Structures are given as structure tokens and as C-alpha cells.
């Protein structure tokens, strides 16, 4: 084929431009640290990146929910362990009340302490977290779980318990309604709570005259029944606290498995999107050499002309 002067320049030019373009592409990869600069570079990988980022984000969100759930469970645990201490004290008192040598004035001291404990107990039944939500009111956390009606503490919430989504497949329960854990019933005892039961006991302490044998006998029967109620409450608290513990252990396990998933996904993401610097560096050297070669050959070609020889 006949080669024209123009073709020699055009070819040299085209090669230089192409090599420059290749060099620029490697340079962008190196400065951004990313393999792909646009979807067109590799649509499949581009899609994978977005999907992986989304999956990773979901685990981040799950972990946030786990943290919130933990905070809520911790608040509840705090309230329940205070209630356990309170109930333990009620048990001590109920045992002490069985001591026949105690005078009415000693009994009155107990009555006063029990009144205090009821007051403390209602504040725990109406426990609020930092933003004012009543923890034990079921779905109705905007208002107190318990209200005093005709001298008795009445549950005003409902039996709803809140669940929070903490993994793609697992919802954890983060609240316990007072209806489930405070309103206790057993085959012999009608459904009621320890506050009212204690109030009844206080009434008995004050109303019954221990010097009258019949009253003393009634008192003993009621005291024993009350001890049973206190022990039921203790059982319920222990049971609820161990439930809370189990949920927190579960949360830790979910968090750990989420972290594992997230780590695997992050690694997969890095494999798809992050630049292989060793390869990019050698690409850089290669394209640089190619560009230099096209410069050198251009310099040679442009110096060649018959006109130089026919002076």
C-alpha cells in the first residue's frame, strides 16, 4: 500500500493520543483508589457495588437497632432490679411481722416503712426512660402505667409488648407490659399487684389488735398469705430479669453474627471496587513506556525527508 506523508503523521498522532488516554485512565484509578470510574467500565461490577453497599448499610442499621434495644432492656433491668430489692425487703418485713413478741408500735414502724415502699414501688411501676416513656404501660407509654383509683393502684396500660427488628430474620422483644409481669395471679390468689397487696397488709397491721387472740390468728393467716404473694412477685421479677438477660445475650449473638456478615460483605465490596495497586502501578509503567516509545518514533519519522538529501 502506498503510504502518504499525512498518514505517517496521523498514525503517530493517533498512537500518541491513545497512549495518553490509557495513561490518564490509570492515573485516575491510582488517585481515586477505585477500579471503576463509571458504570460503563463494568456494569455488572457497578451493580454489585451498589448491592453490597446496601447490604452493609442494612447491617449497620440493624446494629443501631440492637444498641437502642440494649438501652431499653437495660432501663427495664434497672427498674426490675430495684423492684427485686424492694420485694426482698417486703419479704424480710413479712417474716419479721411473724415475730409474736413485737408490739403494735413496732408493727406501726413496719407499716410506715411499707407505705414508703409502696410509694417507691409505684414510681418503679411507672418507671420512665429519659424521654419520658412509661416502660411498663404496654402500647400506651405516653401516660402512667398505674394510677391510684379509690386507694388502689390500677393498671391503665395494655398487654402489648414492643418488638424491634435486629436482624433480617429476628425481632427481639424490648418491653414487658406491667400486665404480664406485675399483675400476678395464681390458683389461690386473684389477679392483683404487690402494691395493693401490701396496702392490704398495712391495713391489716393497723386494723387488727394483736392482743386479741382472734385478731392475732387472722393476722397470722393474712401474713402468711401475703408472704406467698411477695414470693410470687419475687418469682416474677427473677423470671423477668432472667428473660431480659436472655434477650441481651441473644442481642449480643445477633450483633456478633451481623458483624461477621458485615465483615464478609465489606471484604467482598473491597474486592470488587478497590484498586489492585500492584497491578495499577505496573499498568502505569507499561503505558508510560508505550507513550515514550510513540514520542521517540514520532521524533524519528518527522526528521525523515528526501528534501534533506537533494540540496
Amino acid at each position, binding site marked *: *500500500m*502506498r*503510504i*502518504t*506523508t*499525512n*498518514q505517517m503523521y*496521523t498514525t503517530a498522532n*493517533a498512537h500518541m493520543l491513545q497512549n495518553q488516554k490509557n495513561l490518564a485512565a490509570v492515573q485516575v484509578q491510582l488517585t481515586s483508589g477505585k477500579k471503576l470510574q*463509571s*458504570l*460503563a*467500565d*463494568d*456494569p*455488572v461490577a*457497578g*451493580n454489585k457495588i*451498589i*448491592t453490597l*453497599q*446496601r447490604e452493609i*448499610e*442494612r447491617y*449497620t*442499621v*440493624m446494629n*443501631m*437497632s440492637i444498641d*437502642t*434495644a440494649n438501652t*431499653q432492656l437495660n432501663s427495664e433491668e434497672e427498674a426490675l432490679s430495684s423492684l427485686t430489692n424492694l420485694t426482698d425487703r417486703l419479704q424480710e418485713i413479712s417474716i419479721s411481722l411473724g415475730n409474736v413478741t413485737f408490739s403494735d408500735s413496732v408493727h406501726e414502724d413496719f407499716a410506715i416503712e411499707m407505705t414508703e415502699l409502696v410509694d417507691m414501688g409505684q414510681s418503679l411501676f411507672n418507671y420512665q426512660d429519659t*424521654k*419520658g*416513656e*412509661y416502660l411498663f*404501660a*404496654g*402500647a*400506651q*407509654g*405516653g*401516660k402512667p402505667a398505674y394510677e391510684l383509683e379509690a386507694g388502689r393502684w390500677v393498671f391503665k396500660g*395494655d*398487654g*402489648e409488648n*414492643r*418488638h*424491634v*427488628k435486629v436482624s433480617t430474620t429476628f*425481632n427481639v422483644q*424490648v*418491653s414487658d407490659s406491667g400486665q404480664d409481669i406485675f399483675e400476678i395471679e395464681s390458683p389461690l390468689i386473684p*389477679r392483683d399487684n404487690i402494691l395493693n397487696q401490701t396496702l392490704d397488709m398495712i391495713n391489716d397491721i393497723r386494723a387488727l389488735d394483736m392482743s386479741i387472740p382472734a385478731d392475732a390468728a387472722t393476722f397470722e393467716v393474712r401474713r402468711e398469705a401475703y408472704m406467698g404473694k411477695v414470693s410470687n412477685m419475687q418469682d416474677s421479677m427473677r423470671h423477668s430479669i432472667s428473660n431480659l438477660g436472655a434477650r441481651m445475650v441473644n442481642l449480643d449473638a445477633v450483633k456478633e453474627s451481623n458483624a461477621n456478615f458485615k465483615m464478609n460483605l465489606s471484604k467482598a465490596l473491597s474486592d470488587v471496587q478497590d484498586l489492585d495497586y500492584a497491578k495499577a502501578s505496573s499498568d502505569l509503567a507499561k503505558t508510560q513506556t508505550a507513550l515514550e516509545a510513540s514520542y521517540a518514533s514520532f521524533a524519528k519519522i518527522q526528521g525523515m*525527508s*528526501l*528534501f534533506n538529501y*537533494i540540496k
Partner: protein
Amino acid sequence: MSLLTLGSNALNANQRALANVGSNIANVNSEGYSRKVTSMSEQGTALSGVKVDVKRMTSNFMVTQLWKDQSALSMDQAMADKIGDLDMIMGSSSNNISTRIDDFFKAANMVSSDPMSVSSRQLFLSQSVNMAEKFNNIDDQISNQNEVVFSEIKNVMHGINELANGIAHLNAQIASPKSEGQSGFEALDERDRLVQELSSLIGINVVTNAKGDYSVFVGQGQPLVIGFSAGTMSVQHGSEDPNKPKILLESGNNFRVDITDKVNGGQLSGILEYRNNILAPARNQMGRLATVFANTMNDQQRSGLDLNGQMGMDLFNKMNSGSVKISTENSATSSSGAMSFYDVSKLTASDYSMRMGSFDGMGNPTFEVTRNYDGKVFKSSTMTSVSSLPPGDTKGLSQDNVFDVTGDTIKFSIDGFTASVKTSTYIKGDRFLLQPTSGAAGLIKSTLSRPDQIAAASPLRTSEGSSNTGSAKISSIKVNNTADSSPLRSGTATLPVQIVVHGPNAFGDDLITLNGPLGPIMSNVIYVEGDVVSVDGYEFTIDGDIVIGDVYDIVKNVDGKSDNKNALMMIDLQIEKTADGKSYQDAYTTTLAWVGTSAQESQLNHRTSKATLSTSKSSLESVRGVNLDEEAALLVKFQHAYSAAAQLISAQQAIFNSLLSAMR
């Protein structure tokens, strides 16, 4: 023939040859220059001297190939450039809708795990605003591309018209007697150059007639240049879709032809293909996603109860209508159209073309609708008329393939939307363009203003009778009617409801009766564990062991501020397949993948056609281009011949002088 004559003849000949060498050297860098080759031969009779012929080196075959390849390259290049722009818009991380959706659901998660927290609710509101704005933003950028397309096409049209005029003018110049021979070479080169430039703008077919005129045809044989006269091309807004450019050609007969669908090559074709096959569908797909997102979120928000105990209000504006565009070429004097959706999950990202047909045997108008992206045709003759739906049908027009003609209005339902077209007269051939989703991404707005309006709670709560002996519980209570007229929203739902298990009936089935405050609202329903019971716009299931005598209560969720059941259902929407069988984010990544693949494909095509053009360019160049070394050799050759011819004259002079001195 004397030496003198021979000498001067040879001098002239070599001078011309030298002039051609000079011209070749001078034009070594001229685009489209065809080198001139001087050939010499003996004059007819003996000793009559030399005859000079100048040839313009070119190849008609190669030139035609070059034009064709140039059209292909310019088309692929325009396409690759344009899709590259869209790739940049859609692929940029700041425009990533997927991350916005993540942020949105992150906030929804926060609301669900702490429904009374005002800050979580506030964040959820801001994220819904951000989400809507991101959709608006992308739609804005995509629709700006429409304007760019128009202005680029106008530029292309301007170029085509100038070049067509130039070619017609050169046709005239070349045909004139003055241009015969070598003096016409320049005009021929110039005309080829103009044609090549034209071929980069639009695909052409060039026919050379006996006189040497070029006739240039575009599209499928529409004449742009015939002889000495050139046509004019122009662009207009489409008669149905104003965003779709309409390409017109006006030839000598003053008749304008629509050649939009016939253009096949060059920059124009690349731009048109990009606008119609990439840009418009991409915009529709984003619109569909925004529509589905807004509708499904609104439905869920309307299924819940807000912090004030009110049923939830729409989170986004109602995205419940596409648009119906009436062709400006219709014969009917006045028409109007409207659209609504009955099932957004069925919406496609396509536009639809509706065409009126003739009247059927019963005197009713017929029509057909084409789904543009795959060409599927829906004919009125294969749809069911509302009047012939089976008795007891409650859906009416809110189902696929149903139509209704009442007076001057046609309504029909396909793919999740119902279109309604009202026209003064039914005239065969009249057209309407139905766009369910185009531009919808630009319309989505977040409409809630206060954090307490987020409906995180379920409107109902349930409990089991305290003396139940069975272990069953009411599960999955769900609102299934979110219309304003629904019993729950309008306040006509009977509540509280107590469900009593009784029976068994004669067949041993358990029965349930739903009692309201004023008596039963549903009686003696045979119940098997897991059955879904639907009442007053909500539904529920009793799961577990049911025992005769057990009761279950459903009450209004008054003060249910800590409840998050509706928020949990909102979260689940992130992975639900709501958009034509895909989740929101999967639908989005599918769009991205499609844009990316189209961009990649167009780049590949561009690379191929570039290589093809460069091959045909170098083949032609090898025939017509100048090689300076070759010219240097010719220069020396003709210089020597010129000197020799001069010697002839000088010899003649010497002879003559000798003769004179001999006579002296």
C-alpha cells in the same frame, strides 16, 4: 517540427508537471485533497512533441465507503457521548437513590425501635424530604438532557442545511463549462469534502448522474439535494410527546415530510436514538420508582395511627395519575384525557400509544393501545366491557383488560392504570399518548410537616380473654383498606369487637361470632386456625389452639404511643417486591445496570466504527493523499527534464547563430 517548437512544448509540459508537484506539496495537509498526477505521452504524429494529461487521483468506491463509515462513526460517537453523560448523572454517588433509600429506612428503623423519640421521628421526616428532593433532582437533570438534545439537533439541522446548499451550489459550478478539465478539480474535492461532512451529521445515499451531479438522499430515499436545488430540514416538538423531536424535510415541492423514524445514521440518528431509547425510558423508570415508593409508603402510613391518635396522613403527595397527551394532528376538534392507577405494583416504565379505530358492527368505537417498549398491542375487541363483567364483580374498571364506552368517553384499564379519553368525535386514526410514569420522579414531594404525624402505631390492639383456656392469639392484624371512605378512617368501624368461639355446628366445625357494642357484626363463621377474617377494612388471623368458649378482643389503640407495629411494616417495605416484582432498590439497580450496559455497548460500537472509519480513510488516503518524498523525486525528475528542454532551445539558438555567422 522545429527544435524550438519541440523545446517550448517540452518546457510547457514540464512546467505544468512542476506546477502540479507544487500544488501537491502545497496541499499536503489539506483535508480531502486529491493529488494530481501528471502523465505524459507522445503527441500523435512523429516528432510532434509531448502531450500532458493531469489526473485527479481518487476512488469513487472508496469515497462512498468513507461516507458510509463516517455516518456510522458519528452516530455511535453521538450515542456514546450522550449515554456517557447520562451514565455520569445516574452513576454519580451524589445522585444515588439507593443510599437515600437506605437513609430513609434507617430513620424508619429508629422510629420503630423508639417510637416516642421525637428526634427519630424528625430524622424520618427529613429523610423523606431528602428522598423526594433526590428524585426531583435526578428528574430535573434527565429532563434537562431533553433540552440539550433539542438544541443539539437544531445545530445539526443548521449544519445539514448549509452543507446541502453548498453541495447544490457546487453541483452547479461543476456543471458549468468553465469548470471543465483541471480547473474543476478543486470544486470536485470541495464537494466530496462537504458530502463527507454531511455524512457525519446524517446518513446519506449519493447518486451521481451522467452530468456528474450529486443527488443526495436521506432516510429512505427522501431527496435532500437534487441537481442544483437543496431541501431544508427542521426540527419540531413531537405532535404527541413534545419532548420527542420531530424531524421534517422540505424539498423543492414545498411539501414537508416527517422523516423522524427514517433517519438512519450520522450524529442526528445517534442523538435521536439516545433520546428515544435511553433517555425517555430512564426517565420513566425513575418515575415508576418514585410513583411506587410514594404510593406504597402512603398506604402504609395511612394504615397506622400517629402520636395524636389520628389515622396516618399521606407521607408523600398523591402520585396517582400519569398523563394523557393528545396528538396535535388529531382530526377531532377537541379532546381531553386523564389517568389514574388501580395497582401501582403493575405499572411498567413504558409509554403507551392509543389509536382510534373504526366503529364495530354494534356501532361502538374501537381502539388499540400499543405498549411502546415491547410493542405489545391491546385491542378493545379483546378487552372485556364493564357492562359484560360477571355479576358480583366489585372491581369494575380497577382490573386489567377492562374497558367502557359511555357517550363521548372511552375508559380502559391495563398494566395497573385506567386511562380515560374524552373526544368530540371518534375519528379513526386519532392518537393519544399515555404516559403513566414519565416525569413522575420530578413530582414527588414529602407532605408531612410534624414528627408526631408519623403513624408508627397500629390502629388496633388485641388481647385474649383472661379466662381463655386455649393458647391461641390474634396475630397479623392488618389494615386492608386505606381509602378515606374506609370504616377505620371515616370512624364508622364497629369497635371494640369481641370474638367469641362457639359451636361446634352439625359438622363439628368451630364457629366464631364477632360482637360489637350493639350486637353481632358477623355471626357463625366457620373458623379453622389460620383463616384470615376481613371486617371493616382490616383483617386478622387467630393462630394457635382455639377452644370453644374462648374470647378475643380487638379495640382501638387509644394512646398507643409506644406501639411500633405499623413502623415495623414500613421497614419491611424495603425488601418487599413492590415495583413490578422487584424491591425499590433492586428496581433502581436494574435501571442503573441497564444504563451502564448501554453505555458500555455504545462505547464498544464507537470503538469498532472508529477502527472501520480509520481503515477506509487510510485506504482512500493511500490513493489520493500526497507523499512528500514521492513529490521530491518528481520535482527532481521534472526539473531535469525542464533543464533538458531549455537546452533544446539553446541548441536551436546555437544552430541558428552558427548559420548566421556562416552567412556573414
